[in-house]
């Protein structure tokens, strides 16, 4: 995603992301499912309880691709479920679709 004009903030766990998400509403939240301690879907369930995050656009990018997890993601309003492995074009297209970001080369 280096070729997109976006500010990317990365966290290694739900615990690390939580304080940031208390005071920030990103244009797009990209979540994995298997994380240390709290999984991504549980984090999202808690986020959805917060008024600021009821409508936050979320996509899942995960190697954990099971119907049960996809159903939970859908129930939590996830826009796209992208199973790993995915092509770079897939992830770029999805980010552009939901953030309207421009390719850096387009601006130069």
């Amino acid at each position, binding site marked *: 995603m280096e070729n997109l004009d976006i500010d990317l903030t990365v966290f290694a766990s739900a615990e690390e992301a939580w304080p940031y998400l208390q005071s920030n509403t990103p244009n797009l939240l990209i979540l994995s499912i*298997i994380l240390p301690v709290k999984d991504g879907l549980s984090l999202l369930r808690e986020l959805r309880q917060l008024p600021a995050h009821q409508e936050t656009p979320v996509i899942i990018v995960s190697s*954990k691709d099971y119907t049960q*997890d996809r159903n939970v993601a859908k129930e939590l309003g996830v826009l796209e479920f992208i199973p*790993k492995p995915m*092509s770079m074009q897939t992830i770029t297209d999805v980010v552009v679709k939901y953030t309207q970001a421009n390719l850096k080369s387009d601006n130069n």
Partner: protein
Amino acid sequence: MSKAQLRFWGVRGSYAAPFSSHLGVGGNTSCVEIRAGDHLLICDAGTGIIPLGNELVQQDKIREMLVILTHYHWDHVCGLPFFVPAFVPDWKINFFGPGANPGAIEEHVSAQMKAPYFPVGTETWLAETNYLSPKSDSFQYGPMKINFSNVHHPGITYGYKIEINGKTIIYASDNECMFIEKSIKNRSDEFSEEEHDLFREMIQEEHQSELNLFKDADILIHDAQYTSDDYDKKQGWGHSCYIDTINTAIHANVKELYLFHHDPNYDDASMEAIHKHSNKIIKEKGSSLVCHIAKEGTIIDI
């Protein structure tokens, strides 16, 4: 250091297999007891917890336990409605498993004991119940340090690391190991060379998370539900082929591996063949890994 023992009460996955052809290995679903002095830890509550409960009410030394659940699929909780200590006053049962808070864990544990599926609910349990909500991924129960991690299985599912008497035991009853490699292999044609290079990093990342849980374990109790033929038909069901389990255990430098969560379709002869093939693979790889078939009734000193 107190004397500790581990005992397998249920070793099957999916559903109980009480067939005469299967009883050498055992027919009950997942349940493993770890007892350290007066501290009793029970991993999962499949049908194996029923005979364990019947034995517990025959003694008067222990009146409290911790039941840790990997997840709430039936084969891991279906023994609870018949677990006698829960229905006897002066017992205390602590529960832990996936769930955002104690109320969520209680809800998951109670859900199967409702009409029309069962005649009485958990409100008829006379034992004191307590649902744990640790602040981190690590907590202590008597002499046992317990750590949990998210693993590859449908829905939120935990694998547990239990440290006791200087030994590390891993209980990962349901985990589809090497999932990402299989996904990449299946869709190999879709991607460019450059993307395959990135996928190698992705595999490394996934392995690291599995290694964090399994590395240098003294005892690994791990999902090995399928032969390679059956895994080909059931890839993506959340269970491992025993060959992948062995390779993962070797990679993680595990000392003893107990193949677990056996498919209910596999009789004693099939399990013997799996064991024989497992030992052949280990020998060919020159590994010192010791591989066992988890069998109901087996007791291990820790």
